[in-house]
């Protein structure tokens, strides 16, 4: 069983500055941490590995300082990590990020399963995992709550579709994203930290990738154009609608219409 876990380094606090010109996160000088959602993905991978054997490798895209997050995955239990770091990839939106990362996945040799966190705490889109899977042409399931069965041919998972839980069987290779609190992630091991160094992490630049179309990477490869980023207005007014999805739909439409919002 060969697993690749995609992770991201995110700002360590919610006090994040955004470049007013490019709309890109200012990462310099800001303490960083491993995206908390990715911890559940890592734990899911380690548990599958404990049961089925094989390897867990981690993969991230980001500046050089993201090596520390990949090392953290190694201290938690990953065998090795790959960092994709090149200014040409900077400013990638969801689409460009998915394109670049799946290009690396293709180059990482055999894999059965790709696991991602449900979303990141900085981007919050929850789209990169499924979009990568589409580009890789493999089956995928998002918001996975539990891994019910793993065998040589595939995996059975239960996913959270809000109103219902769905159990889904997929053949390898496939991709899953793990729901928050699906497990309790293990802690990084100091013993592993002492035993394993930076040589566990391979850093790739654009030139190391076999078949990547640079026009599809970075800001220029991103169809999303950020016009403006601003903190949301804080509004404590709250109205709670209750009922079935159909009733809620009607009630919400009526509410919006009455306020001339639609």
């Amino acid at each position, binding site marked *: 069983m060969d697993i690749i876990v995609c992770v991201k380094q995110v700002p*360590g606090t919610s006090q994040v500055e955004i470049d007013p010109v490019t709309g890109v996160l200012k990462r310099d000088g800001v303490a960083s*941490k*491993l995206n*908390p959602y990715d*911890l559940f993905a890592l734990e899911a991978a380690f548990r599958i590995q404990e049961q089925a054997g094989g390897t867990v490798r981690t993969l991230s895209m980001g500046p050089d300082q993201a090596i520390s997050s990949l090392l953290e995955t190694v*201290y938690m239990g990953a065998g090795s990590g790959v960092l994709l770091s090149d200014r040409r990839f900077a400013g990638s939106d969801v689409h460009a990020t998915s394109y670049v990362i799946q290009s690396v996945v293709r180059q990482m040799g055999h894999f059965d399963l790709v696991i991602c966190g449900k979303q990141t705490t900085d981007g919050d889109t929850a789209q990169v995992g499924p979009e990568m899977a589409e580009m890789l042409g493999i089956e995928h399931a998002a918001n996975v709550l539990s891994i019910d069965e793993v065998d040589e041919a595939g995996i059975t998972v239960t996913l959270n579709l809000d109103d219902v839980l769905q159990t889904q069987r997929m053949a390898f290779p496939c991709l899953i994203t793990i729901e928050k609190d699906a*497990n*309790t*992630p*293990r*802690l*990084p*091991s*100091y*013993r592993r*930290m002492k035993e394993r160094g930076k040589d566990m992490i391979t850093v790739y630049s654009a030139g190391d990738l076999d078949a990547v179309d640079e026009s599809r990477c970075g800001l220029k490869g991103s169809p999303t154009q950020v016009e403006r980023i601003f903190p949301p207005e804080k509004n404590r007014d709250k109205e709670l609608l209750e009922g079935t999805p159909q009733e809620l739909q009607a009630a919400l439409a009526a509410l919006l219409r009455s306020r001339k919002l639609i």
Partner: protein
Amino acid sequence: MYKTVTASDLEFLRVAASPDRVLTGTEISEDYSHDELAGVKHMPEVLVKVASTEEVSAIMRYANEHRIPVVVRGSGTGLVGAAVAIYGGIMLETTGMNQILELDEDNLTVAVQPGVLLIDLAAYAEKNNFLYPPDPGEKSATIGGNISTNAGGMRAVKYGVTRDFVRALTVVLPSGDVVKLGGKVVKNSSGYSLLHLMVGSEGTLGVITEATLKLLPLPEVSISMLVPFQTIRAAIEAVPAIIKSQASLTAIEFFERETVLFAEDYLGKKFPDTSYPAYLLLTVDGNDRSGVEAELFRVADLCMAQGAPDAFLVDTDERKESVWKARGAFLEAIKASTTEMDEADVVVPRDKVAEFIIYTHEIARQLKLRIPSFGHAGDGNLHVYVCRDNLDEENWRSLLAEAFRLMYDRAAQLCGLVSGEHGIGYVKKPYLLASLDAAQIELMRGIKKVFDPNDILNPGKLF
């Protein structure tokens, strides 16, 4: 003896406070008859939800004149029956006096009313970039209660206990007189410290109606480490070496897997690691991340040299939450695991912790009781719980008494004391009396008499 509360007394209380804050009979919830743990129960005759120093003063003056017993209660999270109205009378509840009155950034102090909850004070301090270091597991306790028991908590190793953070108190004496003890001063050699006499006096000397507390600048970095061990003995025996290494630790907690499993059940949430029989949980704080890490890694190396198979980093908010939330729930979790329990909160010299805990295991085997424990290995304060499980009343009472006798005897042999932070209250009186010499008890009784000649304030407690 004491006077029973009459209609005219109620009339007075309704005028002194306000009618809606004076409760009697079935208006008083059964909760007010006991605290969180101690087996002792008794209802007050009247419950007054007090709102000001002036109110408390008027009530105390009246009660003193009429010889009506008065007991002060905060959130009722005590564990030794200190806030139980064993003689009935008037109960003054302080939780309505829950305002944070002043943050003095020039003197690094915060003034609070006694009913402010620890959890609220800690959050308020942090929001303003300060640390209020005392950190008992029970975060819903009031500050008044914390001062009255001299609560300690998990950061005592580095910062000390509640006493070390009390700068001034406004106290209503049993006579009704109001005194202001201490001040916003850092040093004080001005006569006997009545301030410190009040701290830890368990509501027997006066009613605290305002407290000025010392704050520290909030450390920028705080990292914990969960260190597993193959036996509880190995875990606790590593502690003297850690202390001797002069490591600057904020917390050194120990616990066993069994306790963690109870906490998992209680919280409905898994702990990050339960594969080892015992753990130490260590914290280092400071302002420089690399310095904090270096100190923590030095201790991790020391633990591994002492036989710890690994050490796990608890370095992010999410990881701290997953570990410390469980630690904070241990008492409740053990309570939920049994039908009834009682606790010994002994404190022993730090190099005797292992010996004492191993002895509690012997008692458990000998008496066929379940006696889980956890505690502050770094300061020698242990929380040992004797669980009733399926025992019938008679067996439970006699085995509990025997277990306690053995434990307190051993604590005394090890030069320990009856209570580290929960106090004596009502239920631990025999053990205090047995552990201190007669001269000390007489001095305490004399002090009580000076403050409260009619013995109306929290009578029947401590000794």
